[in-house]
């Protein structure tokens, strides 16, 4: 995580980390999750889903489990869940 100033208790605080789950075939390609993820975790994939849209894919392991993508998505096509603290940054583009 990038800090412009390292907090004194940086190693005491456990920052939430998340895994992004993408239900590719529900996506209609609106781009909201990609555009507004605060950690820029997502980008358009090059593959097509069953509807012909490009669903998002995970491009980094910076997800903080803020659930914004889950809340903004109009299609119930994406959600995040907490990832284990012992394996920070373990984000996968799990698909169903």
């Amino acid at each position, binding site marked *: 995580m990038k800090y412009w100033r390292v907090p004194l208790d940086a190693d005491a*605080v*456990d*920052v*939430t*980390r998340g*895994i992004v*789950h993408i*239900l590719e075939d*529900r996506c*209609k*390609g*609106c*781009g*909201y999750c990609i*555009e*507004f993820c605060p950690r820029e975790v997502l980008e358009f994939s090059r593959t097509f889903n069953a509807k012909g*849209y490009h669903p998002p894919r995970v491009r980094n392991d910076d997800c903080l*489990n803020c659930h*914004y993508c*889950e*809340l*903004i*998505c*109009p*299609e*119930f*096509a994406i*959600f995040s*869940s*907490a*990832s*284990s*603290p012992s394996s920070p940054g373990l984000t996968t583009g*799990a698909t*169903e």
Partner: protein
Amino acid sequence: MTRTPNAAVTPTVHPLEDLVRMDRIPHIWCPGCGIGSVFTACLTAIKQTGIPYEHFAMVSGIGCSGRGAGYINIDSFHTTHGRAIPFATGIKMANPKLNVIVFSGDGDLFAIGGNHFIHAARRNMDITVVCVNNLTYGMTGGQVAATTPHKARSSTTTAGNPETPFNLPLLAYAAGATYIARWSMFHARDLADAIAAALRRRGFSFIEALSPCPVNYGRRNRETALDTLRHYQEKAIIKNGAHPAELDISGARGLILGKFLDIEKPTHDEVYKRMYRPEEV
């Protein structure tokens, strides 16, 4: 929260699926339509309250937003155009224990349904009204609505809207609503929290949820769905407690969001019981 919760169990199912009629998904809303986001915020709010789902009922009218009742997995009613609020009134007065949500659009609630809105607000009927305001009549192809901005294009005002729109929070305020908030679907967390607060409180709660209509409003007015959301992100000014008279959405004032009113006042079912069935109190 600064501790990561126990991640031993990784969910594989979208957390809202128990509240959605999954046998009717995909829904009819267009790609980029904000109704799905407002709907998601509403479902999130229902879960947040912790109130058992059996205590809720959702009533909607006709229109794209009106389809919301068809997708929620609780007792739900898709009624006639403009009449969701009196239907909800009937439910609430016949069974005051129920938590009644009205989920409908700006045209349905404020044009044909306008009279019902003001009277339910006046009575402080204990219902929560979530109005998806996409500035148009989306379902029928993008006709001008009571909320369409002045000079905006619509299918029945091809040279621009000659009218000026309602200031919905002011209308709600003047009619007697006791909880008034306006958010956009971009402000998803605030919107969900506002709906949850409304569900938990007693009284007539009104939440205006601004939303893009990319196909029937956006295309005519040269706005993509993302343009609209960027507009919400950049132009929104959050001013909790602002006076509703200052809340018209215009170039001059900008887009003011927030919680504008939250007061306690006896609800209609409480007053009716106290005055007419005092032996039950």
